[in-house]
């Protein structure tokens, strides 16, 4: 029989490996920077581009999409051709995939610190970059699927199932969550508002964890565990059952990020139960990995590749038990908004994604350079730094998270909040923040050992850019009719991909469609009105500064929260919020009812120097808001874009918007001047500055349900348009 000779492209593997390490170190260092800012708020000074709210998304994007993202491509471009016994379909597409992805990361490095962000977690990049991501991702998918199509191995191995599910689902998630209407070249508004936007965002956000940080890494595990341990996979049946159940169930679990919020109860309940049902499918992967090591455990002691794989799979098992537990409503009531969640995600990120990635690097590098690892001992030292780093990171976060959450909820014997001053609960856990920074430092030192070790390994070897292999072509494509159905499916990539798509669409459709279409899910509140142009500008500044990284806008129906913040948040209050700004973490207090709570001058002083009003605050100062001018030029375009996504501004209102904005800004500024604030810290307070807009927005938050004021009534446009600057439907 004829045997084909072909060559694996190790050059693209090498490129992705270098990118993984490079962006990994950068992502870790940005993480350490934001960790230090929580202990020393003035670390690096108060520079807009380096402020916490702008760097935190850079950290999450860098580690998820740059570090883990490149690691996924690294693993796929190495394992897929070998599992298919075929070279990658197109070298050109491989290169476009690589350089395109790096360009996207670079654009994030520039745009996020500049405050160009959508505010949606893990989907912060603005619309032109969203389009680029979709294009590059599809190019990756085409290259992968065509390689599978041209394979010489009749059946698809389980690793490839996970790669296919990754491609299909991430494409769907990214595109649906990014449907937005551009206002300007770098600013857009999502078509979804409030409750719907939160549901879509967390359907995406949760499944970014599932299909970007879990399924591709399970595929990687299925290739590298048996290769490194030289043992057969424990159970083929377990692979089948846990693969299909995992991808079907995962997609439903998003609402567990929204328990006790204004999301309809039935959707929350689905989030809880599908999360619980996920334990077994997740553990199926862990079991198949660990049980494959039967008889190879003695080698785990010596081989750094196996060590990192084992600690990674173990951390995966722990995280995927913890996740469902955190999805139980009354556990979530304690853990949500606290640092517990930060600990939870880092257990997975540092050890599962980090562990598997370093295992791959230690496995692949010597092989593509035809040499041995430079130092096994140094790799073992790295292993301990990484593991201890994760321990010192995660445990203080658990401790601090629970401590702070219980302080938020504690009442005195007289029935009053024991810690009415939010700051007291923050200061209590600063030592835990310090320990976390120490753990992160250990992890980074370990990663630096890895860089050196890998560099020396590459130096000592001879790089093989094209690795030769031989295999027979598939002889008879139809010669498998007596196989069982799943085995047959494994030889039909088109059907397999189509079935995967169907399976992952079900949960999202069932949860989203009723939430968007059935009115009773979001009861309307007639007194809730759209934002004025100045408030829109303030809201856009709030988004640009990343305030939502530390402040929630969602008061849960608990006595401890309504006592502290005011009436709990209702779904109908968010119908004009494109995007929603509910947040997911309270490093500072909730802001949903901040409107009217403090005078304008308090906000002015607080933004200029938080310690002047809140001694001991770890909020960074925002002096630039007092000196930078607001963006008045594009307010008409933003009003038009908001109308396009459904906010009922009357036709032509965009032409009145600037006048309204200036009138409202003048009024606030005059008030500040009258209160004696013509200048603060030597900065003159004038009505064209960003601080005026953000004060207007903060003073509007959460007040609509308290009365039936029309915020537009006092503005100049009411003289031209009457009260009709809002379309009739908003008034009903």
């Amino acid at each position: 029989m004829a045997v084909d000779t072909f060559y694996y492209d190790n050059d693209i593997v090498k490129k992705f490996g270098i990118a993984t390490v490079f962006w990994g170190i950068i992502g870790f260092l940005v993480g350490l920077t934001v960790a230090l800012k929580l202990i020393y708020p003035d670390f690096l000074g108060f520079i807009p581009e380096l402020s916490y709210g702008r760097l935190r998304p850079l950290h999450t994007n860098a580690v998820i999409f740059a570090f883990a993202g490149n690691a996924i491509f690294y693993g796929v471009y190495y394992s897929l051709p070998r599992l298919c016994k075929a070279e990658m379909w197109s070298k050109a597409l491989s290169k476009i995939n690589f350089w395109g992805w790096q360009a996207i990361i670079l654009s994030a490095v520039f745009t996020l610190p500049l405050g160009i962000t959508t505010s949606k977690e893990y989907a912060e990049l603005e619309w032109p970059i969203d389009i680029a991501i979709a294009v590059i991702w599809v190019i990756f998918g085409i290259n992968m699927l065509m390689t599978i199509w041209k394979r010489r191995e009749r059946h698809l191995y389980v690793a490839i199932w996970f790669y296919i599910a990754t491609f299909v689902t991430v494409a769907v998630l990214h595109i649906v969550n990014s449907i937005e209407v551009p206002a300007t070249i770098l600013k857009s508004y999502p078509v979804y508002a409030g409750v719907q936007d939160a549901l879509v965002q967390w359907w995406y956000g949760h499944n970014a964890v599932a299909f970007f940080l879990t399924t591709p890494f399970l595929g990687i595990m299925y290739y590298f565990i048996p290769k490194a341990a030289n043992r057969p996979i424990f159970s083929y049946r377990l692979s089948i059952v846990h693969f299909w159940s995992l991808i079907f169930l995962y997609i439903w679990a998003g609402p567990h990020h929204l328990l006790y919020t204004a999301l309809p109860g039935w959707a929350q309940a689905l989030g809880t139960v599908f999360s619980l049902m996920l334990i077994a499918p997740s553990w199926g992967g862990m079991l198949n990995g660990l049980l494959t090591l039967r008889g190879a455990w003695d080698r785990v002691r010596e081989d750094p590749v196996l060590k990192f794989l084992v600690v990674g799979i173990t951390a995966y098992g722990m995280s995927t038990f913890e996740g469902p537990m955190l999805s139980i409503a009354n556990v979530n009531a304690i853990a949500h908004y606290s640092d517990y969640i930060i600990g939870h995600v880092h257990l997975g990120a540092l050890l599962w994604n980090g562990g598997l990635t370093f295992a791959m690097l230690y496995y692949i590098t010597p092989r593509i350079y035809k040499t041995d690892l430079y130092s096994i001992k140094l790799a073992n030292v790295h292993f301990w730094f990484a593991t201890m780093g994760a321990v010192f990171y995660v445990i203080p976060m658990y401790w601090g998270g629970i401590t702070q959450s219980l302080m938020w909820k504690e009442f005195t014997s007289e029935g009053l909040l024991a810690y009415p001053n939010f700051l007291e609960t923050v200061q209590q856990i600063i030592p835990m923040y310090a320990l976390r920074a120490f753990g992160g430092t250990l992890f980074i030192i370990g990663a630096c050992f890895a860089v050196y070790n890998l560099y020396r390994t590459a130096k000592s070897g001879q790089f093989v850019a094209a690795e030769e292999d031989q295999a027979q072509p598939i002889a008879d494509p139809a010669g498998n009719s007596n196989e069982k159905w799943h085995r047959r499916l494994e030889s039909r990539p088109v059907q397999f991909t189509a079935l995967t798509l169907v399976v992952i669409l079900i949960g999202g459709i069932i949860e989203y469609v009723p939430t968007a279409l059935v009115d009773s899910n979001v009861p309307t509140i007639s007194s809730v009105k759209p934002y004025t142009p100045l408030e829109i500008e303030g809201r856009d500044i709030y988004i640009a500064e990343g305030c939502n990284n530390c402040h929630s806008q969602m008061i849960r129906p608990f006595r401890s929260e309504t006592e502290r913040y005011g009436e709990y948040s209702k779904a109908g209050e968010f119908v004009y919020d494109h995007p929603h700004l509910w947040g997911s973490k309270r490093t500072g207090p909730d802001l949903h009812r901040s409107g009217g709570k403090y005078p304008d001058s308090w906000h002015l002083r607080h933004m200029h120097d938080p310690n002047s009003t809140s001694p001991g605050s770890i909020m960074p100062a925002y002096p630039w808001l007092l000196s930078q001018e607001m963006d008045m030029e594009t307010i008409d375009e933003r009003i038009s874009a908001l109308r396009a996504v459904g906010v009922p501004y009357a036709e032509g209102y965009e032409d009145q918007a600037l006048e309204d904005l200036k009138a409202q800004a003048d009024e606030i500024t005059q008030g500040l001047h009258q209160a004696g604030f013509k200048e603060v810290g030597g900065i003159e307070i004038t009505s064209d500055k960003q601080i005026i807009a953000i004060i207007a927005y903060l003073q509007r938050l959460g007040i609509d349900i308290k009365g039936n004021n029309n915020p537009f009534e006092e503005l100049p446009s009411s003289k031209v348009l009457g009260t009709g600057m809002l379309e009739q439907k908003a008034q009903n």
Partner: protein
Amino acid sequence: MKVFDDEKDKLLDHEYDGIRELDNHMPVWWLWLFYFTIAFGVGYMLYYQVLGWGPTQHEEYQQEMAAAEARFGSQEQEDPVESFTWTISNDESDIEAGRELYMNPNQLCFTCHGNNGQGLVGPNLTDEYWMHGCQPQDIASSIINGYPDMGMLPYGSGSKLSNEQVQQLVSYIASLQGTEPDGAKAADMNRAQPCTEGPLASSES
């Protein structure tokens, strides 16, 4: 691939880049765990959503508030301003205790009225002009109830003080009268009145 003797009959003919697969059964405990979570999920949906037996989050909230009211009574019914006899103490230890409360980050008085009562966002406390009355009871009322519309929460930060502590704070504020600190804020003559009677009445008027 290393294959043990007891596994040979379970070894499938699958092979991918040298990777083999065994045909082991799924662990029984794992299967039961899966069945249990599915059954739990069905039961949970029935109990809370389909049959409506379990409370919704809003019902839970109402229960929690009702339980608190039963235990502590309605907060509004107590009126410490009316039920306590407010005076001004000249005792040094009371004034010092009041100053500590004033400077305490839990009460936050100093953040708005200044470290020496000279007034910042909040009004000057050292001159003879008062917006909300200058009787000891008026000052206590201002502290206890605050002016949330103006930005002053009850007790300055919402953190409750005992009547004795409020008394000490009132005494400290009284002691600030006429101290003329640096940077003293001018009184808002549209709203403030000079104090004409009571222990803090200005001697000139």
